[in-house]
């Protein structure tokens, strides 16, 4: 039996998983917690320190999300953050999350489950994915305190490939695409590769290539091509008036100025001070201070990394830069 919508007022969908018929959703009690960690899954893992959340969880068909969205629609998203990875997007999300009036979902894994539902079940249509995404993001945007006024979603980097579907599902929502000198991103990825940079881990990120062909590629080439694919997708949407291209070199100052203006949100002087304080830390390791490291990364790049960045990623990066500067 499904719960009532009021039974999950303080619960969030944390996991969507496949069933033969329709996906199911696990819900977790949030208590007084907010999504303040660098990533959605870290907050959920923290919630699981309370054994209550491991034993007691609502499980519903995905259609229940539709009931929640209908009865308790919450805040509409004020802005979406897309990015190519390792380019300051987590920092931007953490700056917004530093204020209690902001709901910030940073790379929520259920979004990935919805968007890739067709990879596991080809019968899932784009219309279903779009509907499920609308329901899910609506459920995340429910207000749990009077303070909450704005709602932002930062997507996984590979979700950039689904920008078309997402922007169509949310036609009124402004978005930014954060990007960075691809050599710097490539050096960072080669030091510690994200899941999206390991072939086959996150589905098919390079359309037109079979997995055996991809497995033959050097890691540097695969990463450079994937970065280029993210940037190409963002570039295709760059004429969209809802879109804003942001280079890492503009970070973090542009968050409280250009990005806030683009998202049509404004904050008091005190709030901006808090956001800037959040920007002072390394967003993925808050015990360390944030320091720009572009030069160090470029200096440490080996020949293969440089060649692959030159060949696959710089051409689209330069077109992104041209589009940004022309706007």
């Amino acid at each position: 039996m499904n719960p009532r919508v009021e039974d999950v007022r303080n619960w969030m969908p944390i996991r969507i998983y496949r069933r033969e018929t329709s996906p199911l959703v696990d819900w977790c009690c949030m208590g007084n917690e907010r999504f303040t960690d660098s990533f959605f899954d870290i907050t959920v893992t923290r919630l699981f320190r309370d054994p209550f959340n491991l034993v007691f969880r609502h499980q519903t068909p995905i259609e229940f999300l539709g009931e929640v969205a209908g009865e308790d629609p919450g805040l509409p998203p004020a802005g979406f953050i897309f990015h190519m990875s390792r380019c300051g997007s987590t920092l931007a999300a953490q700056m917004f999350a530093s204020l209690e009036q902001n709901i910030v979902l940073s790379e929520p894994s259920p979004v990935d489950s919805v968007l890739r539902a067709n990879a596991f079940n080809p019968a899932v249509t784009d219309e279903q994915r779009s509907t499920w995404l609308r329901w899910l993001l609506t459920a995340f945007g429910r207000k749990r305190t009077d303070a909450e006024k704005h709602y932002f979603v930062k997507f996984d980097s590979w979700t950039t490939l689904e920008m078309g579907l997402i922007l169509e599902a949310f036609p009124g929502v402004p978005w930014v695409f954060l990007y960075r000198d691809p050599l710097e991103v490539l050096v960072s990825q080669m030091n510690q590769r994200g899941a999206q940079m390991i072939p086959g881990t996150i589905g098919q990120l390079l359309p037109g290539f079979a997995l055996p062909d991809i497995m033959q590629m050097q890691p540097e080439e695969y990463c450079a091509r994937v970065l280029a694919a993210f940037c190409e997708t963002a570039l295709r949407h760059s004429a969209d008036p809802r879109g804003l291209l942001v280079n890492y070199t503009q970070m973090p100052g542009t968050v409280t100025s250009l990005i806030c203006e683009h998202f049509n949100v404004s904050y008091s002087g005190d709030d901006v001070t808090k956001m800037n304080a959040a920007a002072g830390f390394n967003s993925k390791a808050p015990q360390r201070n944030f320091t720009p490291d572009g030069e160090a990364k470029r200096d440490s790049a080996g020949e293969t990394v440089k060649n692959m960045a030159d060949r696959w990623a710089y051409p689209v990066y330069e077109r992104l830069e041209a589009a940004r500067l022309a706007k």
Partner: protein
Amino acid sequence: MSSPDLEQFCSEVLLDPYLQEKLRNIGSTPEFIQRVVEAGASRGFEFSADDVGEAIRAGHRVWLERWI
């Protein structure tokens, strides 16, 4: 869940905010298990501390295997 009674109790908890509040934010896992067994028994459910421990482990496992 291995115990039908524990499963039934969980369904009751999920519909009872008062009971949820009583069982949330309990400092230690052993104490949580004890309180769940007691709360279940007071409502006529029979399940053991081992059943609750297994449910906790299963909850962990489900989360850790979320990408599989």
